């Protein structure tokens, strides 16, 4: 009887897995050799944790979304790795960012996880909390691997409760993109590291103008960044330090988000939601109708390609109670279920270390977290075109913060943002919005 029950549960599970994996979109770029189906991960159990004996060939599977639109970039990293480690073969599968985490979770559930998986910061905590990732501290320690080649914050952002779950492969941080022409016209100095909130507001007011006198603002001084920015600037955070409760009802949090709401709308310096519905802040900046725009390095290339009528640069985002900005990033991690951890670790080191990072940086994919690569290759790749002050991207890493490392972060941000949307429209007050948000956030955290 018990057996039968187990059998039923098991078959139901298998069916579910089958259905789920059928739902997962098939990769539209199958590996060139075409043997992507039916391949079983190295069944050789005794390879285990031991480094693969030299001469014995082993294969690891790597699933990645890095530079998906330029697949030769990550293929180049793999090629260089295989050249350096001739006895480790890499099966690289490129999956678009929009699908990779669903696909990975499905594969983990089906016991078919790749040995190495690419992650972005936002998904790391959730996937680590599910137990899918191998803690890396022992590998780092036993190898004596030097983590100081990376910017500290880019390493720290993949630690959950002090445990390193991934190795940083790229980072990006938000800085203030400025339209120099609009500053020149208004006779203003460009923003410096010393700028505080009042400087932002007064410059923003001078730059927000109705140039054709029809009663509608034509150029805006500033555009709002993602909401947690204004918590960080005011020394607040979304969750309490231990991540166990909502911290949005603290005075600092309310004040910070009130400042955000006050920046836009009637008499503000930033476009309201209605204005943005008519033209996005991204398009406004490119059209020369936005003076200060907080955005990450992903803006550099498109702005260089599209902006011809004015000079632009980047600067530090003005401080609130403190300097702050966002730190985002991508990383490589190892599946806890990998049968080939020694080889996977070699790949992690190589692909995120100076050699692999250099190739990715030459492919212009975000910014390398390896200091020497970022400060040489990244900066030199930008030479001759804006932003002149590209070093700000590196300087800002020091004070950059990442969104909370909660496994429930996507749920939390989905709970908070709709309330803030209502506050931004003016339907409810900021206090009310945050009180509502905290009810949801705490109920998420209690589960």
């Amino acid at each position, binding site marked *: 009887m018990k057996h039968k029950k187990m059998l039923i549960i098991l078959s139901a599970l298998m069916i579910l897995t089958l259905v789920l994996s059928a739902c997962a979109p098939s990769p539209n770029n199958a590996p060139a050799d075409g043997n992507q189906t039916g391949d079983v991960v190295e069944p050789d159990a005794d390879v285990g944790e031991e480094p693969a004996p030299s001469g014995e060939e082993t294969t690891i599977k790597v699933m990645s979304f890095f530079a998906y639109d330029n697949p030769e970039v990550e293929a180049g990293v793999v090629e260089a790795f295989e050249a350096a480690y001739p006895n480790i073969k890499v099966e690289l599968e490129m999956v678009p960012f929009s699908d990779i985490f669903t696909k990975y*979770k499905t594969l983990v559930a089906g016991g078919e996880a790749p040995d190495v998986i690419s992650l972005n910061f936002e998904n790391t905590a959730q996937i680590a909390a599910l137990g*899918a990732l191998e803690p890396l501290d022992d590998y780092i320690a036993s190898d004596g691997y030097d983590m100081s080649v990376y910017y500290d914050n880019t390493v720290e952002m993949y630690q959950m409760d002090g445990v390193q779950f991934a190795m940083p492969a790229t980072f990006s941080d938000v800085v203030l993109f400025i339209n120099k022409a609009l500053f020149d016209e208004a006779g203003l100095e460009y923003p410096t590291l010393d700028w505080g909130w009042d400087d932002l507001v007064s410059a923003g007011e001078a730059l927000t103008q109705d140039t054709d006198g029809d009663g509608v603002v034509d150029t805006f001084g500033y555009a709002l960044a993602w909401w947690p920015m204004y918590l960080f600037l005011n020394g607040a955070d979304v969750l309490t330090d231990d991540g166990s409760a909502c911290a949005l009802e603290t005075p600092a949090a309310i004040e910070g988000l009130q400042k955000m709401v006050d920046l836009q709308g009637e008499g503000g310096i930033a476009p309201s939601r209605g204005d943005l*519905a*008519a033209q996005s802040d991204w398009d406004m900046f490119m059209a020369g109708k936005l003076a200060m725009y907080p955005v990450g390095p992903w803006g550099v290339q498109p702005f260089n390609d599209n902006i011809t009528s004015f000079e632009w640069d980047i600067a530090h985002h003005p401080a609130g109670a403190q300097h702050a900005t966002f730190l985002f990033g991508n990383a490589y991690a190892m599946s806890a279920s990998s049968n080939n951890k020694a080889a996977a670790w070699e790949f992690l080191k190589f692909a995120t270390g100076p050699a692999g990072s250099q190739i990715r940086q030459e492919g212009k994919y975000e910014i390398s977290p390896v200091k020497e690569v970022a400060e040489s290759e990244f900066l030199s790749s930008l030479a001759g075109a804006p932003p002149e002050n590209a070093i700000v991207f590196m300087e800002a890493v020091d004070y950059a913060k990442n969104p909370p490392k909660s496994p429930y972060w996507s749920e939390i941000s989905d709970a908070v943002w*709709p309330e803030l*949307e*209502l506050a931004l*429209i003016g339907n409810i007050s900021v206090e009310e919005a945050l009180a509502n948000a905290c009810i949801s956030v705490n109920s998420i955290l209690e589960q």
Partner: protein
Amino acid sequence: MDKALHQRLPAKSKRKNNYRWKESIWGYIFILPNFLLMLVFTLIPVIFAFGVSMTDWSLLSAPTFVGLDNYVRIFQDPVAKITIKNTLVFTAMSVPLRIVLPLLLAVALNQKIRGLPFYRTCYYLPVISASVAVSMVFLWILDTNFGLLNRFLVIFGLDPVGWLTDPDVALLSIVLVTVWRGLGFNMIIFLAALQDVPEDLYAVADIDGANAIQKFFHLTIPLISPAIFFLIITGIIDSFQSFDLVYNMTNGGPARSTLLLGYYIWRQAFDYLRMGYGAALAYLLFFAILLITILQWSVRKRWVFGEQ
């Protein structure tokens, strides 16, 4: 002789049984593929989901039994309340439109007009179009800045509307796209029903001096009421389960204004990996649909033709 007969009788009836069994086994064999498919893809998952709804399960780690916690949580979850409210509003707006508009259309296309097959095909096209394609087209049409609809409004001197960006309007936009998509299917059902209405009844009504409107309300409507009944039931079920347009067009935003139960279930289960809570919400939806359908079924005698 007697004995022989005695022996023969059961043998004969046995053969007869055998024959009937042989005949019916073919029936079973014929329904087996469908039955297996339904078992594997419907019945087992439905039963399985009920088990899942009693657990805390992330898909990736082993489920833990939590009893009715997930059901209790529905009542404590403020977002679930918003979701249920949105779903009810959505249903109340879309179901009447999905009955009235196709009915008018069917009556119009039941006349003898030129190019009838062309019109019928046109109205049916959205039904066979992929929902992603429909969503993409409407994302363009309803875009606040570049959308066809707003461009049109501006020509007539009206203010552009945030069809998918204004929390007061977005749900209505989803309703309109839903109605447009389902127009053809409901129209075909109504057309079939209309063509079943005997012509001579209209002739009799003409003799009695009934005008077109009287004929429509006192003759046509009652006679096609089984079709209306069918479409109300399936329409409510359909709108309770609405998912794809929201998934493709708004992700439940802005400010949760288009967060429907079907989408919220998906988000809980496959985005947040709360399979247990997602399954509990799905069961809530199941019972809501069951209840409403039973309710409709029980009052059908009062108005559906042929059920009295």
